[in-house]
């Protein structure tokens, strides 16, 4: 099967940020995304608004360029004051043109 290697960016953040993260990721060039509800613990134990649910995990398959831009943006905008982590992996996708 012919596959193309792209990047999967994963962002784990307080659920409160979901709407904005999706907006940002789209603006920076992602053509799709998938959100999972998760819970977790990290260095900042506290999560705001209990009603919001705990955390969300946002995954998006993008080109290396877009991946880089997303990480830059997160680092500048959310890392200082929000409970957010992000990481990147290589994935082999079918129909690579769908994602770029």
């Amino acid at each position, binding site marked *: 099967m012919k596959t193309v290697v792209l990047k999967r960016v994963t962002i784990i953040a*307080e659920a*409160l940020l979901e709407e904005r993260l999706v907006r940002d990721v789209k603006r920076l060039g992602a053509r799709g995304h998938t959100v999972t*509800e998760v819970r977790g613990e990290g260095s900042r134990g*506290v*999560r*705001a*608004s*209990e*009603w*919001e*649910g*705990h955390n969300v995990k946002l995954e998006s398959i993008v080109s290396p360029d877009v991946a880089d831009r997303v990480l830059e943006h997160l680092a*500048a*905008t*959310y890392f*200082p*004051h*929000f409970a957010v982590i992000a990481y990147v992996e290589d994935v082999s996708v079918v129909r690579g043109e769908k994602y770029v």
Partner: protein
Amino acid sequence: MLPYRLVDALDLLRLNLLSPMVLAFVLGMVAVFVRSDLRLPEALYTSLSIYLLLSIGLKGGAELSETPFATLVLPALATLVLGVTIPVVVYAVMRRVGRFGVADAAAVAAHYGSVSAVTFTAAITTMSALDVRVEGFMPALVALLEVPAIVVALSIARSRLEVSAPGAASGRAEVWRELLTGRSLFVLLGGLVIGALGGKAGLAQVAPFFVDPFKGALVLFLLEMGMVAAGRIRDLKKVGPFVIGFGLLAPIVNGSVGVLLATLSGLSIGGSTILGVMAASASYIAAPAAVRIALPQANPALYLGASLGVTFPFNLSVGIPLMYALSRALHGLM
């Protein structure tokens, strides 16, 4: 007469503390302390929140539909005054006495200015258990107290902070929108409108779902709140004695002013108790979300520790009977 009142207040305290609702809150705390693996599904908790807010709104709206406008004017005015004054005073105290930064002080001000829906509900429940009449339009006042308080507090912070934190919602318009469309207030206001348009006949259609089982649903909700509150107790250690003292004093002062203004505005003994409790309570649904978005640099351990860890249990146990006693005293005087 004072000793009699005291006995009375103790009776109330007992009544309040042995209701299934409050006991469920305690059970939730116990669950955390003994490390039970009990956990309410998040979907249940969210569903209950929506249910409770919608129910409060529907009942308030149906009542509102039969309330003459003139009856509303003075209590609404009293509520607005509270909504503007409390955050200003709390902010000043946090800054001057507590020596906190701008963001932290404003965050606490937003919380204590607005209303805790559960405390409100517990107060309503107590009044009805005592057969004390309460004006039906009180839920409308909740919305009236919630919104301005948060806006005032955030405006103070905005005008005093040179640059907003990275990631913070920018522009007052966005904060307003986030606030009014935030799910808690949206559902409460939506319920009010539906209730007002449908009237008592509309409410009657859905009473077996939204009215009769209300207190039972509150039991499940408070079970979860107990677990949440217990989880916050370790936060208290981080924030120190000033915040604990503040969390105990603020409801007494704010609540007393609330009862006084309410009494002056012509509300009944029951209604004045409720408005006092509303002033005494600190939000932990709408305010945290708004603050988190607009003032991300404020420390959640501080504002949640105070509002959820100290003031919330204090109000449930001591605050409500205290406001009732005060309301009776003031109505006796007048």
